[in-house]
C-alpha cells in the first residue's frame, strides 16, 4: 500500500516557523524597549544618587577649607579678605610668637600646623640677617616648635613666596609633611602693616586625611572609587594610600583630560563621562576654592547589574519558551501527521469501499446474448463517497430478478446495511416461488440484531421473460413508473405499501402481479430523485418525475436515465446533492418479437 500524500504538512511547518518568528520578533522588541526604559530609569537614579554623594563630599571638604580661611582671617584681623593687616610689634619676643601660635593650634583641631614668616627688613626682636619665621606643628597631640630662617630660607618656599609675590591669599599644592608623612595642604595669607606694606605671610596647614576618610565613607557601589585630586591632577584622596600624590592621568588619562577641559572651561558643577574602554561611569565635581576635583568612578557592570540580570534571566526564559514552543509544535506536528495519515487512510478506504459498492452493481453488456430480451440501465450516484442506495438484477432460469432499495441515512453505516440487503437479495430471491415470502425472509434477517434501527425501503420483482408476467413486492418504497409501449404514456404502478425492511420481523408482505407488453419499460428510482431540492428547497416531486420520464419515454433506457439525471441537475441548479440518487430502468422485448 502506497503512503498517502500528506497535504498541509508543509503549510503547518511554515506556519509554525512564522508563529515562532513573529513571537520572537514581538518578544525581542518588547523586551528591548523594556530594557531600554529600565536602563534609562537606572541611569537617572544613579545620576541623582551620585550627585548627592558628590554634594556631600563637596560640602564637607569645602567647609573644612573655609574654616581654615576663617581662622587665618580672624588671626590677621583682616576686614578685607584680600588685605590682612598685622602688627609684629605686638610680639615682644620670639617666645611670645611661638606661644601665640601654639594657642591657636591647640584650639583648632583641624589645623595641623601654623607658621608666621616675616620680611627680614622688619624690626622684630632677635631677627637674624635672613629674617624669621615661627612654625608650630602638631605631632601626636603635642606641639613642636620650629624656628625657620638662616640658610634654610623660608622665603623661597611655596607657602611664602607665592603669597608674597602675588600679594593675595594662596592655597598651596598638597605635599607630604616631613614629620608625620601626612599629605597636607597649606593656606597662605599675605600680611601688611598699617600703611599697606607687605610684611610677611601667615600659613595654616590642614591635614587631608579627613577628606580621604570622608571619601571612603561614600561608597555608592561595591567597587566604586571615590577620589579627590588637586589642580595638578594628583591624588589627594584615594582608597589605596599608595596612590596619594601620584598623577591620575597615569590611570585614566582620557577621562581626566575630558573632565579638566570640560569642567574648568565651562565652570559646570557636575557632569559625567561614560568610558567604554574602562567600562565605567565617571562623575566629576570641582571645588573652586582650591580647584580640586572630586571624582566618583562607578563600574558599569555594577550600575546596570539589575538590567543585566534581567537581560540574562529574560534571555534564558525566551530561549526556554522558544524551545518549549518548538517541542509543542513538534508534538502537534506528529499528532497532525498521525491524524492526517489516518484520515488519508480512511479516505482511501472509503474510496475503495465506494469502488466495491460500484462493483456490486451489475454491469450491463448490450452484446451479451442473455440480455437480448430486455434493454436495461442502472445508475447510482451517492451523495457522499459511499451510499446507502442499492439496485441489482440478475437472470435465473428464464426470469429477470431485480431490486432497488434505499437505506435510511447515508454514508458508511447505510452502506453496510445496504451490503447486507444486497447479499440477502441475491441469496434469497434466486429461484424463489413466492416473492412476498422471500422478502419476509430478508426482513427477518435484517431485523436480527438491528440495534440501531436501520431500515431499507425495498422494491423487488421477478419478470418471466417468456410470458412478460411481472411479480413484484413493495416494502415501503416509492412506486415505480410503468412506461408503456404506446408513445407518450407512463404512469405510477399500483402497489400495496408495506413497512420497509428491518423494522419489524413479523410483517407480512404482498406479491402483486402485472403483465408487461412488448416494449413496455419499468422505471425504478429512489427518493433522491423525487426529493431532489434546488436552492429554494423546492422538491423535484412525483409529478415532475413522471412528466420527465414520459417526455423521454421513447428513448433507450440508457437515455431515459441519462436525461432524467440531467433534468435533476437542472432543477437543483447548483444546490448540493443531499441524498443518494439511484435509477434502474429496463424495457421488455418479448421473445415473440425478437
Amino acid at each position, binding site marked *: 500500500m502506497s503512503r498517502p500524500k500528506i497535504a498541509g504538512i508543509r503549510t503547518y511547518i511554515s506556519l509554525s516557523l512564522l508563529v515562532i518568528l513573529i513571537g520572537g520578533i514581538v518578544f525581542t522588541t518588547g523586551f528591548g524597549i523594556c530594557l531600554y526604559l529600565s536602563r534609562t530609569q537606572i541611569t537617572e537614579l544613579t545620576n541623582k544618587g551620585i550627585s548627592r554623594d558628590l554634594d556631600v563630599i563637596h560640602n564637607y571638604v569645602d567647609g573644612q577649607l573655609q574654616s581654615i580661611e576663617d581662622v587665618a582671617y580672624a588671626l590677621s584681623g583682616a576686614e578685607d579678605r584680600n588685605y590682612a593687616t598685622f602688627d609684629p610689634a605686638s610680639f615682644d619676643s620670639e617666645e611670645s610668637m611661638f606661644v601665640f601660635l601654639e594657642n591657636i593650634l591647640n584650639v583648632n583641631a583641624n589645623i595641623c600646623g601654623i607658621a608666621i614668616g616675616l620680611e627680614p627688613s622688619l624690626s622684630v626682636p632677635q631677627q637674624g640677617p635672613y629674617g624669621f619665621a615661627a612654625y608650630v606643628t602638631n605631632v601626636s597631640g603635642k606641639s613642636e616648635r620650629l624656628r625657620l630662617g638662616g640658610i634654610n630660607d623660608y622665603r623661597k618656599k611655596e607657602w611664602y613666596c607665592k603669597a608674597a609675590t602675588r600679594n593675595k591669599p594662596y592655597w598651596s599644592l598638597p605635599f607630604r609633611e616631613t614629620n608625620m608623612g601626612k599629605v597636607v595642604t597649606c593656606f597662605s595669607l599675605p600680611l601688611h602693616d598699617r600703611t599697606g606694606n607687605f610684611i610677611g605671610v601667615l600659613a595654616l596647614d590642614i591635614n587631608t586625611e579627613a577628606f580621604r576618610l570622608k571619601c571612603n565613607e561614600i561608597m555608592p557601589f561595591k567597587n566604586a572609587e571615590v577620589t579627590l585630586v588637586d589642580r595638578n591632577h594628583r591624588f589627594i584622596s584615594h582608597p589605596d594610600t599608595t596612590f596619594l600624590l601620584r598623577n591620575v592621568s597615569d590611570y585614566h588619562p582620557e577621562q581626566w583630560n575630558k573632565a579638566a577641559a570640560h569642567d574648568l572651561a565651562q565652570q559646570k558643577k557636575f557632569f559625567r563621562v561614560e568610558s567604554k574602554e574602562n567600562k565605567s561611569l565617571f562623575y566629576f565635581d570641582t571645588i573652586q576654592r582650591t580647584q580640586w576635583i572630586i571624582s566618583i568612578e562607578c563600574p558599569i557592570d555594577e550600575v546596570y547589574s539589575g538590567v543585566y540580570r534581567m537581560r540574562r534571566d529574560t534571555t534564558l526564559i525566551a530561549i526556554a519558551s522558544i524551545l518549549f514552543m518548538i517541542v509543542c509544535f513538534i508534538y502537534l506536528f506528529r499528532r497532525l501527521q498521525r491524524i492526517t495519515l489516518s484520515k488519508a487512510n480512511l479516505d482511501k478506504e472509503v474510496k475503495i469501499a465506494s469502488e466495491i459498492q460500484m462493483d456490486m452493481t451489475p454491469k450491463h453488456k448490450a452484446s451479451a446474448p442473455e440480455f437480448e430480451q430486455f434493454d436495461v440501465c442502472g445508475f447510482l450516484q451517492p451523495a457522499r463517497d459511499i451510499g446507502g442506495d442499492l439496485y441489482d438484477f440478475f437472470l435465473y432460469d428464464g426470469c429477470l430478478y431485480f431490486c432497488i432499495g434505499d437505506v435510511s441515512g447515508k454514508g458508511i453505516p447505510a452502506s453496510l446495511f445496504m451490503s447486507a440487503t444486497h447479499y440477502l437479495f441475491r441469496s434469497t430471491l434466486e429461484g424463489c416461488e413466492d416473492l412476498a415470502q422471500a422478502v419476509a425472509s430478508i426482513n427477518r434477517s435484517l431485523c436480527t440484531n438491528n440495534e440501531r434501527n436501520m431500515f431499507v425501503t425495498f422494491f423487488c420483482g421477478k419478470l418471466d421473460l417468456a410470458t412478460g408476467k411481472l411479480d413484484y413486492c413493495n416494502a415501503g418504497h416509492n412506486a415505480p413508473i410503468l412506461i408503456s409501449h404506446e408513445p407518450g404514456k407512463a404512469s405510477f404502478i399500483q402497489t400495496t405499501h408495506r*413497512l*420497509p425492511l428491518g423494522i419489524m420481523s413479523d410483517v407480512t408482505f404482498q406479491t402483486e402481479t402485472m403483465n408487461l407488453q412488448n416494449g413496455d419499460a419499468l422505471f425504478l428510482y429512489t427518493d433522491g430523485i423525487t426529493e431532489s431540492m434546488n436552492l429554494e428547497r423546492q*422538491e423535484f416531486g412525483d409529478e415532475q418525475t413522471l412528466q420527465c420520464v414520459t417526455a423521454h419515454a421513447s428513448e433507450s433506457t440508457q437515455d431515459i436515465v441519462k436525461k432524467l439525471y440531467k433534468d435533476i441537475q437542472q432543477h437543483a441548479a447548483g444546490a448540493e446533492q443531499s441524498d443518494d440518487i439511484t435509477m434502474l430502468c429496463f424495457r421488455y422485448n418479448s421473445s415473440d418479437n425478437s
Partner: protein
Amino acid sequence: MTIEIQKDSDPIFVKMIGVLDTGAAEQIETEIQEIESLAQKTISIDCSKLEYICSSGLRHFLRIRKAAGEYGHVVTLTGVSNNILEVLKITHFDSIFDIQ
C-alpha cells in the same frame, strides 16, 4: 431544526420545527435519546412545523415508536402536513403511528 420537549406533561409533547434532513438528523441524536428515555409515558409529536423528513428522520421516529412500544404505548403524530403524510404512507409508517 429544533425540538421542543415538554417533559412534565402527560402525554409528553414533542414539537419538531424545521427541516429534518440528513444533517439535522445527525445533530438531534441527544434529543432523540432523551425522548426515548421518557417513553414510559405516552408521547405525542407535533409535526405541524415539520417541513421535510428524510429517511434518517424516519429512523428517529421509528426509534421513538419502538421505545414507546416496549411500554405498550402508541406514539401519536399531530398536525402532519400532506407531503410528510405522503412519505409516511409510502413507507407504510402510517400503520405504526396514530396519526391525528
